[in-house]
């Protein structure tokens, strides 16, 4: 069965060093992250993954100022384009953008999509405190809508104030994980989407489509309650739940047990779900085995494995 994975990270070590990215933040996996083909393809072939959509977890770049962030984003996008060109049919990419310079980001997104053939953009968390509902972010969302490409909203480490408020008094190792992949950045990402819905961002940009990973960043579980609680206080032409039903896509990365899958399936449906691994932070074989063996009808399995991605990303 064809499999397309959408949250597959790329970060060359030289660029990471130049950007001052802390190796700990990427678990030191520079070999895998920086690999431009051979190691990736070996992992993909072993797991049965046909295509990786590359992206850069680029939260660190946003702190470098507009000029450096823009230059580094261009460099990263050119490097991803080279990987794509070197291995036809195996890779596509979500653009890395200087979100701290939204107008430049909009321009770079246009270049990435129109000249490099990229299929969307990956945004990692907040941009210097701004969520995507912030007015400053509008040029990027407008560009994505105009170019008809989705925004993959990826987690990022929490602001220091949040870390201090929620994760102090813990062993450093526990704090590091609990604030990120163990819990914290997933609920933050789900919250980020709810912020967008609640502020009418999807009404301002009706064509905007957002993808989140990790079986929906807790949104499937909590959608009905969030919808009920937010209903009386939001000013939308439809409901929060309906808004997400129309604008949100979910990838499966990092969640390889059945109960969350069934939750996403019965809340959002297989039409809105797509396979991903989160290379190199999750194991490709585990991910593909999980989807292959999951209790799904064959039509739904194929949609999740590749059909939805092919249609959404037009690949």
């Amino acid at each position, binding site marked *: 069965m064809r499999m397309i994975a959408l949250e597959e990270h790329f970060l060359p070590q030289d660029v990471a060093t130049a950007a001052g990215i802390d190796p700990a933040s990427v678990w030191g996996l520079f070999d895998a992250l920086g690999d431009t083909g051979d190691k990736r393809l070996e992992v993909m072939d072993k797991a049965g993954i046909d295509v990786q959509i590359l992206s850069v977890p680029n939260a660190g770049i946003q702190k470098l100022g507009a000029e450096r962030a823009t230059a580094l984003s261009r460099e990263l996008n050119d490097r991803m384009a080279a990987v794509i060109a070197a291995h036809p049919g195996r890779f596509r990419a979500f653009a890395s953008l200087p979100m701290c310079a939204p107008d430049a980001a909009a321009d770079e997104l246009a270049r990435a999509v129109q000249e490099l053939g990229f299929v969307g953009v990956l945004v990692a968390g907040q941009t210097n405190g701004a969520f995507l509902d912030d007015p400053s972010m509008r040029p990027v969302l407008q560009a994505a809508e105009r170019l*008809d490409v*989705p925004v993959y909203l990826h987690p990022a480490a929490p602001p220091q104030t949040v870390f201090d408020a929620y994760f102090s008094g813990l062993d450093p190792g526990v704090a590091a994980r609990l604030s990120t992949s163990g819990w914290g950045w997933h609920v933050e990402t789900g919250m980020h989407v709810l912020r967008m819905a609640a502020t009418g961002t999807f009404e301002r940009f*009706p*064509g905007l*489509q957002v993808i989140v990973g990790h079986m929906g960043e807790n949104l499937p579980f909590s959608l009905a309650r969030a919808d009920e609680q937010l209903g009386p206080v939001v000013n939308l032409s439809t409901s929060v739940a309906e808004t997400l*039903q*129309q604008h949100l896509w979910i990838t499966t990365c990092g969640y390889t047990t059945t109960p969350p899958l*069934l939750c996403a*399936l*019965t*809340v*959002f*449906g*297989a*039409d*809105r779900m797509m396979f991903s691994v989160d290379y190199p932070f999750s194991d490709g074989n585990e991910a593909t085995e999980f989807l292959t063996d999951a*209790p*799904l*009808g*064959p*039509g*739904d*399995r194929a*949609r999740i494995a590749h*059909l*939805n991605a*092919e*249609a*959404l990303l037009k690949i």
Partner: protein
Amino acid sequence: MQGKIAIEEHFVTAGLEHTLFPTIGWDPDEWADVQRRLGEAGSLRLEEMDRHGVEIAVLSLAAPCIQLIADPYEAVVQARASNDALAGVVESHPDRFAGFAALPMQDPKAAANELARSVEELGFRGALVNGYSNLGDGIAYYDEPQFLPVWERLAELGVPLYLHPRNPWESQMRIYEDRGELLGPAWAFAVETATHALRLITSGLFDRFPDLTVILGHLGEMLPFAVDRLQQRLSHVPAFSLQRSAPAYLRENFYVTTSGNFHTQSLIGALLQVGADRIMFAVDYPFESHADAAAWFDTVAISEPDRLKIGRTNAQRLLGLSPTETTGDMRARAAAPGSMR
């Protein structure tokens, strides 16, 4: 949910009333009401549909009707008459009703011809048969070789056969002795129909005609639940072999409907076994009420896209129906892969 398409909705003609399955023990007033509704396809039925968001009902004879008629010639005559009557009903409200043909399986060649007539001349969407057919003193199940002409014609025409229940034959009645409450839709219907469907599968019918479609009501007569164990055990019998597995045939050659089985656990089980693509909404009117069916289905624990598929678009596609486009249709088009807006 508005715009639902319900595909196991029964009627009976005056001439066939005496062939309805026995309703021993049923409340007589309730049964009188059911009979009244079986004979009506006008404002009473349509108002029920309107009240509960059913736009189109695909109509079929109740059970066992034609299948009970032991004389093949009589079966043919009655089937034609019934199909003509149904055609008249459909014509009276072509935007609200569609038809599944009754087939006189007692004469397979005639049944094949009646199928073709029903589809090509009367505009019906497929056929519905009520289990095995009486034939002289005995009965016949449709995996038997004499029925190949019917399956051939179904495959040629590309229309489905709805295999609807009837009670077991007299030779299977010992287990129901003194337990008549287990007959009919309470239990015996499902066992009989599931086993008949399995006969079709294990006879290799779907290897011979890989594009055949059979529809089962009542969320698949328990087959989604049971088919994995069946396959597991069949795999221990080396002499027995088919091209595909039993679960694969269920997924690839069958659809299941919700008729008379408004049960969330079973629906989710079917969803996980055959997928939302292969499930369609039905009420089983007038044996079940639109109110019960809709109250359950409209809010049952599935995603909205799957509700739209099961409630409408699967049937639309399978049966070639063109209901009025609703907001839901427009949204389904917008949300479907291939379109971002």
